[in-house]
């Protein structure tokens, strides 16, 4: 009997220990999540404060940095956006138009286009593209700068690292994602119609664009601006936070990058879900 008990007891201890370990794991992750959200919230508020109060400070330094970010996250990604938008238009939208035509529902084309492209896929794709190309680069650059002591060097020169490193990235990414989304939507809508036209769908261009115009509401324009700007701000804040918030060693920069990408994807999708609710309420 004692043998059986002794055999059971360790197993029981093991279970308790495993439970405790699992609880610790979940608890630790929840605390980490809280800390990260707290830190990112603080960084966002500080960045907004610095951007407003130091708008006129060192314009000759900071404004070119903003332009550099727009060039990097906007102009240089334009060819990729054209390719993605054309592919999106042909594959997704063209197919949808074809499908609607098959069931005689051509009158809904405009509504479907606006819902799918303008409200959802356009901003989401542009944000994910910028995250993949520029967000990751942000973490690597800032993480390396922090690891190499460049942030302390800025502080030693009396240069505010938030003003010099974070503000240009936030403003640049917000403007870039907004601009890229506009191009992505326009090209996707055109290429979608082009595909449908080549598939001999009986839908005249005038009718197609009239449907689009009818389906678009003023709220779509306002929310598109907000949504894309917020996506850009979120990606910039999360990537800057991951790169700058903790003292990193060089070998930790890659982990910080993957962590930032995961957080940005979750954040962008959650924000997108919130905007869906806003669209439904409006």
């Amino acid at each position, binding site marked *: 009997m004692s043998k059986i008990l002794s055999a059971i007891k360790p197993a029981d201890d093991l279970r308790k220990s495993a439970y405790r370990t699992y609880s610790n794991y979940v608890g630790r992750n929840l605390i980490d999540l809280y800390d990260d959200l707290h830190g990112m919230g603080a960084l966002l508020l500080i960045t907004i404060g610095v951007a407003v109060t130091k708008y006129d*400070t060192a*314009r*000759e*330094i900071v404004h070119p940095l903003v332009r550099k970010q727009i060039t990097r996250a906007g102009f240089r990604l334009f060819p990729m956006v054209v390719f993605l938008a054309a592919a999106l238009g042909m594959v997704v939208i063209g197919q949808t138009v074809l499908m609607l035509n098959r069931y005689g529902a051509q009158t809904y084309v405009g509504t479907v286009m606006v819902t799918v492209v303008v409200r959802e896929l356009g901003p989401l794709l542009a944000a994910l593209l910028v995250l993949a190309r520029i967000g990751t680069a942000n973490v690597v650059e800032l993480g390396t700068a922090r690891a190499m002591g*460049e942030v*302390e060097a800025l502080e*030693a*020169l*009396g240069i505010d690292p938030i003003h010099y490193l974070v503000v240009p990235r936030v403003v640049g990414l917000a403007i870039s994602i907004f601009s890229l989304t506009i191009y992505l939507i326009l090209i996707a809508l055109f290429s979608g119609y082009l595909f449908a036209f080549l598939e001999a769908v009986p839908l005249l261009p005038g009718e197609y664009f009239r449907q689009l115009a009818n389906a678009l509401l003023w709220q779509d324009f306002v929310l598109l601006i907000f949504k894309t700007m917020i996506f850009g701000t979120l990606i910039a804040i999360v990537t800057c936070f991951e790169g700058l918030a903790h003292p990193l060693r060089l070998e930790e920069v890659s982990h910080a990058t993957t962590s930032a990408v995961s957080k940005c994807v979750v954040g962008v999708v959650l924000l997108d879900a919130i905007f869906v609710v806003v669209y439904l309420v409006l």
Partner: protein
Amino acid sequence: MNVVTAARQKVLVAAVDWVVMPGEYWVIGGPHGSGKTDLLMTAAGLHRPDGGFLRLFGQDPAQLSEAEALKQRTRIGFVFKGGGRMFVDLTVAENIALPLCYHHGWSTEQAREEVQAMLELTKLTALAAETAHSLRPDLRQRVGLARALALKPEVLFLDEPAAGLEAGHRNWWRDFLGRLSDGSAFGAGQKTTVIVATSDFSLWHEDKRRYALVKDKRWQILKEHSEYPQID
């Protein structure tokens, strides 16, 4: 100044009692890892002391407004060790122009004259268009010096500026800092208070200088240069 410096909860140098007067030339010696860098960064106001109090130009940095703290910061220069922490995506000239453009609101063009003067002062004119990747660490360190001097600080902290350099470069640093201290480096005769951290006193051996030692977490001001001990 009475400072307890700490990094990651570990006290590195305790009970530092140190007053630096304008125009003095201090040499702080100590073995590698003794906490000289943390001490210097704390004394320069870049780190907060964990205990005691720190006054810079007679003022507590923690009590200053943002504008006052910024003004105070520009009166202090800091040269980091091991390559001077040059900004890698900028050229030598852009590195030097950065603090000038940021604080004076100048364009790169407007800062050109000052940058040129600083390049000539530190013998870097030929390297103005180079980036950090193409420079040897000793030259990067010199870019760090030129950048720290761009705003003409009253106090200059240097963390092991001559460590690992060839004899020629070591002598250049010693002579240049001597000229900076006696006011002959800048045309206007502005004397700069110089504070150097080193793990080798012998290079900085001179009558007019003041010496202190950081060893075994203790801070000790040496009365005469002849008193300085073997550090390691």
